[in-house]
């Protein structure tokens, strides 16, 4: 039978590849739209409360986008957007909401305690760990600057 190396080489050469151009364009467009919606929310918040501090406006935008991501996940739309857009809908904060809400929904059947609560961060866990660790590191570096 065929040798190991020759076979691996053949598979590497012939395996179907993702359509790069299509993926990049879809990610750019959808990611851009999501960010534009975020900018829109920012403008609306500023319009409603002109005196609000810049940081607070940012928090409002994040909260709104997280809610939007979670809501679209719950009604079963976000996975379809993700199927089309790939990284375009994974990278923005709505994608983060999706990665927390989707396992929470999936494991709802195993109960609130060992299902939803235990499995909620199955996908987002690494992001949170990296976020916390890097914030500590940046904090320490900032202390000496």
């Amino acid at each position, binding site marked *: 039978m065929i040798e190991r190396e020759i076979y691996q080489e053949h598979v590497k050469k012939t395996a179907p590849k993702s359509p790069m151009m299509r993926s990049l364009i879809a990610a750019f467009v959808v990611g851009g739209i999501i960010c534009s919606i975020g900018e829109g929310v920012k403008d609306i918040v500023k319009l409603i409360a002109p005196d609000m501090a810049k940081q607070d406006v940012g928090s409002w935008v994040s909260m709104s986008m997280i809610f939007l991501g979670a809501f679209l996940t719950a009604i079963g739309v976000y996975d379809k957007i993700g199927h089309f857009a790939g990284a375009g809908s994974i990278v923005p904060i709505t994608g983060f909401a999706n990665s927390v809400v*989707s396992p929470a929904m999936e494991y709802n059947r195993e109960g609130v305690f060992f299902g939803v609560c235990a499995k909620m961060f199955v996908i987002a866990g690494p992001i949170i760990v990296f976020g916390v660790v890097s914030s500590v590191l940046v904090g320490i570096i900032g202390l000496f600057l």
Partner: protein
Amino acid sequence: MKIRKGSFRLSNGVYFKSGYTIVGKKEEDGNFSGNFDLVLKNDLWGEKSYEKAECKMHREAISGAIAKSNLTRDDVDIMLAGDLLNELSASSLAARNFPTSFLGLYNACSTFGECVLVGSMLIDGGFADIVTCSTSSHFSSAERQYRYPLELGNQRTPTAQWTVTGAGACVLSKKKPNFEDNLVKSDQVIEDMNEKDRKFILDTAVARVKYEKNHVAKVVEGTIGRVVDLGIDDESNMGAAMAPAAADTIIRHLGDFDRKIDYYDAIFTGDLGRYGKELLEYILSKEGIDLSDTYMDTGASYFKPEQQTFQGGSGAGCISTVFNGYILSKLENGALNRILVVPTGALLNKDTPLQKETIPGIAHAFVVETEKIKEKYSKKQ
């Protein structure tokens, strides 16, 4: 009778008394449409979880096969079953509804082949008269176990396959099926169901597998596969992991029985997918074996391209629904007379690729031949 290491010939042959299949809506929309006994409108089938739904499909498929062969569950000596869920939970939970000796088998998506091989050996050896073989898989329960939550917005790679939502079961028997057994009793199965379960069945699908049955199918030979690993480590490219195992089994089978590939009317592999099928043809062509147009991969052929499953179907329910639905009908109406069935499986779990293990594959082969039944007994069903 042992032919050579892992290859055997049954002394009398073991008959397929009946086959029964249950699939989801997407499967019915695919290329094998019209060949399944029962189609579900909703793949939860009124249950609270997809695992429970798979278990119910498995249970009903076994009940259906038993009813279709005019037997009761007390007539079955041994049940052989397998699926993809942790610790064979779908088959084990399904088996608790039967007063029957039970063997749970696992060889990933090739489990149906393993069931048929073991079942026919048990019968031919005189250890049982009636054996059921069944396997199931469910897209949603497999996604959750092997991949990601359903609602996660990620993209599938072009080499990915789509787990078939379906359960297939067959009844193997020592005695040649006779006229009475030919009456398809699919209606009975649905009548026996309670109102709640019946609600989720597609109306048009009720007992519509009708064809002229003038042959009976029997297992005559088999080759038990070896675990083959050529170092593929991409768990979303299972076709590449399984193709060498399928090639190994086919080469060994032909060598052991000293045959050419055109000895068979048709060759069916399990779920290599479109790319895996190409790879198998590539490996075999290097050995001078040309599979030509009598070869079909049930996974690659399962779905239509517009159903966006990339490489096609996979899962333990893939070959078992196609075999018990499509292939068995082709055998029984005489369109095919001697075939080689090679279910394939990728032997991994969620953790092995993370621990940098490569993915081994396995493939089992069994030969099915047909016998003509006397003219006066054959009947339009």
